[in-house]
């Protein structure tokens, strides 16, 4: 069997630049034209009844287009009518033949885009039962994350039923027309629960040592194989490292045993992952350098003979291309980079890497799923709206002269979208450089330099769309009078403000951005006023440089503007760096010796400090009233509306751009 390539990769720049990514590979009896795989991604875009909906279908179609002939995996399906296997409210189901037409629509969409369709079976085990009072697993081990349900131990009959349900659901996938069968056994899902010494304490044939703990996986593979025949390639996703040392999970050596057992059982390709949802070690966020986990792919390659794929912090094509050349990886797998930019690999092939909207590894996508909300993306406003024509960039019915005030992420996002629609767009930025607050923000440690990738992307997109830039030019009322724009988009961002406390005008008080850009000299003991992202960024930046930092937040939580799937990493770093934090507190007074922190019930706490840094913001809206008076169409976006996260700036910019 061979998938006929729709593209002649050698004719494209990317095919020449990354020859290892664009060469075929055989999985089982099927030859795949390239080494690119879109990994299964839950999106909560289906109905709560498990039926595929248009939103999920169009989401999938675009990703299938993106892999340019490679593998496109649908989100894992759950297989039991009770819903114990269901980990997400919008997870697709496959427990009955009635789901086949919906699944077929997904397979058909993938094939129409010239990609190879991959169907995934995913019983969520310990993290499942999203609509039931309990979930199921090999043993009733308590949950340490409160979001998950209590675990009910599976009986042998439950296990046999579950294996049969895997086989039946697999058959439905093949009936729907899928070309590859994948089984998910990662991050805390059922198969991983059976494999792990942390969650499997059974004494019967499904437990015991690692060989025994593999029994459920092996029987499942055999049952699936029996159901689908020998011609369909099978893939399994398994952890190379559970990163559960603290609760007695598998050792890396035990994980390699699971790989070998899967291969012996007839698996044709192995997808390597690391970490569980319960791991206390960051795995996929931007504080983990790109390519950090490749050593696990290498270990897998040494353990098995079948092809090995891997996702997890491989966001740029150079890393997997080299890894394939070095023989430590066979297939480049990804989900988040293609949530951010569905056509990412296509752009790589076409030599348009600068036009790739970069994932900033913020995990907002995951945060939404765990709150039973449809997936969205921090940087891609169209994500999950692929089926909605109102969200697409369409030619404007009337060309307008658009003045955008501010060259930060909100202004630039709006600018390129409006220009693509045919408007005459002018961006005015008072500084000599584009980027707005992202420029200083990207100086913060632990991967925040990746944030600047958004600005690089915007520059390329604006240039392509024909946006006019006026750098170093401050917009005044006179300029607006002279230019007479049809539309003004106020995207001037926010300015950092000093508080009301006595002493804020002292010489030892400085602005967060000046510190991050090394324009201000900071002493050894520092108080940062402002507990949102800018305050956290500057606090970590200084703590990393050996300063004794105290962070004072007026909000109840530190990092209120950081998404819930990411904030714990910042909190962990703040704790590791011994940053003292005061929540629901404000500064009462600043002296040359330090500050007085006052909490919400009036207690006053003296804190020694040589330097005080202000990191609170207020919107910049000076020109708002003038523009309104002139009767010019006005839009206020990004931090100029309300200081918030980068995501809000981008979404504001896009949504305004498509409506001008």
């Amino acid at each position, binding site marked *: 069997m061979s998938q006929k390539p729709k593209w002649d990769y050698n004719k494209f720049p990317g095919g020449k630049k990354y020859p290892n990514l664009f060469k075929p590979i055989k999985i089982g009896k099927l030859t795949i034209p390239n080494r690119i795989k879109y990994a299964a991604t839950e999106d909560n875009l289906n109905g709560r009844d498990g039926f595929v909906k248009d939103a999920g279908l169009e989401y999938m179609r675009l990703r299938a287009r993106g892999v340019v002939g490679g593998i496109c995996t649908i989100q894992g399906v759950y297989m039991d009518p009770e819903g114990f296997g269901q980990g997400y409210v919008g997870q697709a189901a496959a427990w009955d033949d009635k789901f086949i037409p919906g699944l077929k629509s997904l397979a058909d969409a993938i094939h129409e885009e010239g990609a190879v369709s991959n169907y995934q079976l995913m019983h969520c085990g310990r993290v499942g039962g999203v609509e039931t009072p309990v979930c199921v697993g090999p043993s009733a081990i308590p949950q340490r994350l409160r979001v998950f349900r209590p675990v009910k131990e599976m009986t042998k009959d439950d296990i046999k039923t579950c294996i049969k349900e895997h086989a039946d659901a697999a058959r439905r996938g093949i009936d729907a027309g899928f070309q590859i069968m994948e089984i998910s056994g990662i991050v805390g899902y059922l198969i991983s629960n059976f494999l792990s010494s942390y969650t499997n304490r059974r004494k019967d044939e499904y437990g015991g040592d690692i060989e025994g703990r593999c029994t459920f996986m092996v029987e499942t593979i055999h049952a699936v194989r029996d159901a689908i025949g020998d011609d369909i390639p099978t893939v399994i996703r398994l952890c190379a490292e559970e990163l559960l040392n603290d609760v007695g999970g598998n050792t890396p050596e035990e994980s390699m045993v699971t790989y070998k057992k899967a291969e012996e059982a007839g698996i044709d390709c192995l997808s390597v992952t690391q970490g569980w949802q319960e791991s206390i070690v960051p795995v996929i966020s931007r504080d983990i350098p790109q390519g950090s986990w490749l*050593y696990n792919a290498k270990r897998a390659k040494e353990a098995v003979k079948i092809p090995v794929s891997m996702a997890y912090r491989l966001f740029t094509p150079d890393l997997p291309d080299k890894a394939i050349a070095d023989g430590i990886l066979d297939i480049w797998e990804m989900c988040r980079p293609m949530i951010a930019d569905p056509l990412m690999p296509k752009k790589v092939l076409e030599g348009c890497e600068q036009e790739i909207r970069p994932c900033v590894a913020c995990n907002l996508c995951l945060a939404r799923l765990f709150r039973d909300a449809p997936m969205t993306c921090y940087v891609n406003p169209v994500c999950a709206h692929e089926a909605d024509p109102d969200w697409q960039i369409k030619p404007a019915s009337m060309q307008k002269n658009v003045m955008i005030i501010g060259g930060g992420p909100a202004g630039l996002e709006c600018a390129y979208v409006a220009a693509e629609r045919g408007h005459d767009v002018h961006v005015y930025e008072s500084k000599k450089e584009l980027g707005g607050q992202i420029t200083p923000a990207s100086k913060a440690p632990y991967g925040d330099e990746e944030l600047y990738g958004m600005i690089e992307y915007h520059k390329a997109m604006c240039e392509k769309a024909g946006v006019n830039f006026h750098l170093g030019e401050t917009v005044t009322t006179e300029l607006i009078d002279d230019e007479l724009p049809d539309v003004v988009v106020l995207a001037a961002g926010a300015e950092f403000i000093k508080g009301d406390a006595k002493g804020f005008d002292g010489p030892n008080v400085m602005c967060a951005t000046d510190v991050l850009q090394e324009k201000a000299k900071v002493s050894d003991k520092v108080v940062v006023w402002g507990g949102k992202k800018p305050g956290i960024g500057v606090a970590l930046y200084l703590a990393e440089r050996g300063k004794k930092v105290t962070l004072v937040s007026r909000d109840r939580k530190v990092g209120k503007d950081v998404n819930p799937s990411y904030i714990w990493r910042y909190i962990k770093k703040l704790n590791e760096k011994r940053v003292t934090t005061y929540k629901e507190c404000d500064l009462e007074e600043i*002296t040359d010796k330090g500050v007085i922190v006052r909490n919400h019930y009036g207690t006053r706490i003296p804190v020694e400090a040589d330097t005080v840094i202000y990191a609170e913001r207020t919107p910049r809206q000076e020109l708002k009233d003038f523009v309104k008076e002139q009767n010019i169409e006005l839009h206020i976006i990004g931090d100029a509306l309300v200081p918030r996260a980068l995501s809000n700036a981008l979404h504001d910019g896009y949504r305004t751009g498509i409506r001008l």
Partner: protein
Amino acid sequence: MKEVMAMPVNPEKEIRTLMKKFEALQNINRATWYEWRQAAIECAQPKYKPIDLVLKAWEVVGHDTAKAYFNMLDVSKPTFLEDIAKCIVMSSTMMGETAVVKKGENENEYFVQWDRCPWPEFARRYGVPMEEDVLGCDKWFQTVIEDINQLFNTKVKLETQKAIPRGDGCCLRRLTIEPTQSMTKHKGAKQVLGDVKI
């Protein structure tokens, strides 16, 4: 320190006020417990005995306390048992008790000793039998330990040897652990990012 004192705030006054509020909150917490107990008994009698309700309530509390401890414990660390003892001390001191960790004969044995506990005084005020306090406390800790054993695959045991409500002068609980594979399997494992380079 001298420089801090120069600032226009009286730390002693601030801390004293805070402590008063903190102690009042602890007392309200205890009073609320016994008031809820009374309400539950009035609603549930004669079907349920007071002691059964109290033990069930402490079991519920114990499961929640265990969840709070989970993230503070690491079975691959040699201090696992000592850390459990420290967690118990932390919870107790937060509630206004005075407790310390004492090392036993070896690393597999620790004691937690309470020299002051305001709970019996409240029990007396609300007419609760002293023994109920002992059994309730024991149920709480036993539930915590059971959950820890389940999560970490360990064999920790807790034994109440002395109890203030019984007139022993102090509460004393002995913690022991039987070494299990889950405690030793990760020693030396290089699972933390950066330990292994390609």
